[in-house]
């Protein structure tokens, strides 16, 4: 029998506030409910793992060695250095340093409320992304040949190696106006914390962009050669392959083969082909078909030449650490490691999912709130706009856009975001129509709150639930849209993508390569499933119909 409670709080004491406990906030409560669902936790773990991989992708999957050391003393250059570090781009640096800082800001106990910290981080990261993208665009544009004299002189001015501060100053000049716009956003109440956050973002982005105005990756093949000659020793990353390094002799290697095994497999296969060609020649000779016999002999010499080339390459590499490197998930039809691509593609998947959904939420919530709150003519007009956008087939629009607009990630995110906001708008509108008649909205007006505050501070948190649930499904849909486009060969052409990998499962030779179907397919499936499970858990956590606790 359980012990009876030693003390009972009487009604009188309760009236005086004895035993009153601090309530958790609405979102904290909902979040703890989500964490109480085991499937949602599994989904969160998967999404978290994808996010971590996206951030640290260059550190775990990189063909550039972590550390390189010359065996004999060198006269020029450093004795040992990290080629990986010098190959990191500004984006890599911002992610690698920004993400831990962001996690620390959220996790460490601070006096500022978590919601305010989150808002500040979101503002800082949006500014950083915009500034970094803008900087990359400008630099990329300058690097395109034939831009005229002014561009060339600007490029030379920026790239003057003796004046290291110039690119930093350039990045700073791009960042400052953005930060000034950002300072207008009310993400924290205190001006000095706002200033501190913006200054930190400005400084970080400027430094990262300025230092990495151009990366100078060490020639990868040179490293392999030097290693084969025994001139250097290297320490490689966990997955010693980059998604942008292809070796033509290592195409379609099945999973779990090392480089040397892949070579010997190829040689064995070549031997078989040579044998077959020889048998064919003999058969042709016996049958007296001279032409076939000559063709078979020709094949034979060609295959033998290939074999001797492979043999030589293998001899060169044999015994080095390179030869022992393993393709854990095999390679695709271009000879690129699949695992490295899967890891790097986490970036594309996450950014497409979150950025396009972010754009959609921004447009959808703003328009939906206006429609729901004002009703009448505003509702009538804006809802026609919603209907127009609902009638647009997103996939076909994307396919057309991929043909007309530059094929990069930003354009893809913008298009997905700009056509998929109708769900958020309709949900927000419905919620606001319901909420606007409620007494607390009336009382907000009576207190004299300005309209944006009523709409977004007071009404939105009460009606955002269905929008959030919709958003988590929208992220899944955006990931699928990206995968579909990449599968069709219309994705961003400079980036690893799960969809692109999937597309190469039936390679140019027409053979079905199972590892190229299973692994990317599984990853896409798990990601989409995770967002859907999370959306469902969120809905269950917040839906008042499923909760007995009355407010």
């Amino acid at each position, binding site marked *: 029998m359980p012990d009876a409670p030693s003390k009972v709080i009487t009604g009188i004491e309760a009236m005086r506030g004895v035993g009153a406990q601090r309530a958790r*906030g609405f979102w904290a409560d909902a979040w703890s409910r989500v964490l109480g669902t085991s499937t949602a936790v599994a989904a969160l773990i998967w999404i978290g793992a994808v996010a971590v991989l996206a951030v640290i992708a260059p550190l775990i999957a990189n063909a550039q060695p972590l550390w390189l050391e010359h065996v004999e003393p060198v006269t020029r250059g450093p004795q040992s250095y990290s080629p990986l570090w010098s190959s990191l781009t500004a984006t890599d640096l911002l992610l690698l340093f920004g993400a831990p800082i962001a996690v620390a800001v959220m996790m460490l106990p601070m006096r500022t409320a978590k919601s305010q910290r989150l808002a500040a981080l979101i503002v800082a990261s949006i500014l950083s992304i915009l500034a970094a993208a803008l900087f990359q665009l400008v630099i990329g544009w300058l690097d395109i040949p034939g831009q005229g004299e002014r561009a060339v002189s600007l490029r030379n001015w920026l790239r003057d190696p003796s004046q290291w501060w110039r690119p930093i100053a350039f990045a700073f000049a791009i960042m400052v106006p953005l930060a000034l716009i950002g300072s207008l956003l009310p993400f924290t109440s205190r001006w000095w914390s706002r200033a501190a956050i913006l200054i930190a973002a400005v400084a970080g982005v400027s430094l990262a962009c300025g230092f990495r105005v151009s990366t100078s990756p060490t020639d990868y093949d040179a490293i392999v050669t030097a290693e084969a000659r025994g001139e250097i020793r290297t320490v490689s990353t966990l997955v010693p392959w980059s998604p942008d390094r292809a070796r033509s002799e290592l195409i379609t290697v099945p999973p779990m083969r090392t480089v040397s095994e892949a070579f010997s497999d190829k040689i064995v296969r070549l031997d078989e082909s040579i044998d077959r060609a020889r048998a064919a020649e003999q058969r042709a000779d016996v049958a007296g078909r001279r032409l076939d016999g000559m063709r078979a002999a020709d094949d034979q010499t060609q295959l033998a030449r290939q074999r001797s080339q492979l043999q030589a390459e293998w001899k060169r590499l044999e015994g080095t650490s390179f030869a022992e490197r393993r393709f854990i998930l095999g390679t695709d039809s271009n000879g690129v490691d699949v695992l490295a691509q899967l890891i790097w593609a986490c970036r594309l998947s996450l950014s497409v999912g979150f950025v396009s959904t972010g754009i959609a939420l921004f447009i959808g919530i703003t328009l939906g709130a206006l429609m729901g709150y004002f009703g*009448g003519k505003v509702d009538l007009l804006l809802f026609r706009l919603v209907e127009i956008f609902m009638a647009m087939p997103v996939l076909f629009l994307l396919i057309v856009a991929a043909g007309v607009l530059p094929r990069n990630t930003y354009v893809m995110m913008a298009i997905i975001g700009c056509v998929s906001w109708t769900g958020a708008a309709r949900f927000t509108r419905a919620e606001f129509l319901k909420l606007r008649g409620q007494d*607390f909205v009336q*009382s907000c*007006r*009576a*207190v004299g*709150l300005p309209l944006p505050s009523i709409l977004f501070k007071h009404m939105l948190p009460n009606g955002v639930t269905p929008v959030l649930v919709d958003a988590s499904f929208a992220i899944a849909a955006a990931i699928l849209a990206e995968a579909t486009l990449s599968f069709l060969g219309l994705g961003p052409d400079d980036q690893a993508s799960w969809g692109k990998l999937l597309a190469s499962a039936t390679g140019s030779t027409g053979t079905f390569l199972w590892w190229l179907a299973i692994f990317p397919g599984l990853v896409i499936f798990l990601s989409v499933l995770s967002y859907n499970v999370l959306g469902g858990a969120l809905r269950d956590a917040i839906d008042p119909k499923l909760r007995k606790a009355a407010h």
Partner: protein
Amino acid sequence: MVHEPERPLLDVADLAVSFDNSGAPDAPRVQAVAGVNLTVFPRQTLAVVGESGCGKSVTAMSTMQLIPTPPGRYDRGSIIFQGRDVLSLSEHEMLSIRGGKIAMIFQEPMTSLNPVYTIGDQIMEAVMLHQKVSPREAFELSVKSLEDVGLAKPRERMEGYPHQFSGGERQRVMIAMALGCRPALLLADEPTTALDVTIQAQILELLRELQVSRGMGIMLITHNLGVVAENADVVCVMYAGRVVEYAPIFDLFDRPMHPYTRALFASIPGVRDAKHRLTTVDEVVNDPAQFRKLPGSDRGVIAWWPFTPESERPRVVAGRDEYALHQIEPERWVACWRTPEVEAKSSPRPSLTFRRHEMTVSA
């Protein structure tokens, strides 16, 4: 002692508000308020009494321009608050008046607070909106105003969410929120309906104190004649969007003149009344004898009542509104038919500076 005529804090003149009923532009509109006149002076409580739907709340909401337009529409009239016509102000100018100069307590405490924010957040937001104070000062001001309305442990309960408060506590939070900004005029729309009697008395006592110390005017909208009897200085009885009787509290309770006012009093059961059934309003207002009790009823001053049969209505001045608020005594206005006799004697708009606490002080 020479009296400069005191200027009212709020002066509602001939206010008419109507609502769109069907959406069709030429469809008849619902006239919720049809020419209401009333004044509130500083340190005065004006009680607006009447049955549901008589236009009390619409009048109060109009003074803050809280009627959504459309479907609402201000047909005519003016609402002068501190020398400015509220109805002519822009939405932006209204923001500083709402909450800051005119505050409102709503009748629904259960749903008038935002469920996703703590009580503290909500009071502090209102305080910081209208007063230039730091968050720390705003916190202290909020705690003080919660303490004023008699909430136990205000400092701890600032962290609480609305669902942790009982109905009465929420109503007190609402009142604290309204009073936190030190308004000049308080519109109290049935402020004590949800409260138990002890708290009710406490809140009304608090409102009276603040009224004296801050010079605040109160428009008290209620059904409860007991609350009116204890708190009001001037009573405005409304029916069907019009004022039917307007008089100082004691005069009205001693000698209700309009049959409808009499009916309201008659329908209150006394504790010792051994009645088989209660008197209804209809029983009183359908009795022609009641209409003859009005002084001057034999001289053409006849109490206005919308349900008087056509045959019994007096001859009214053609082309004008049949209703007129007639000053029957120096300190009493009663709704009358606009007969030539009533029209002949022009009545000023109702305005009474009477305050009960000043009377007792001077007495």
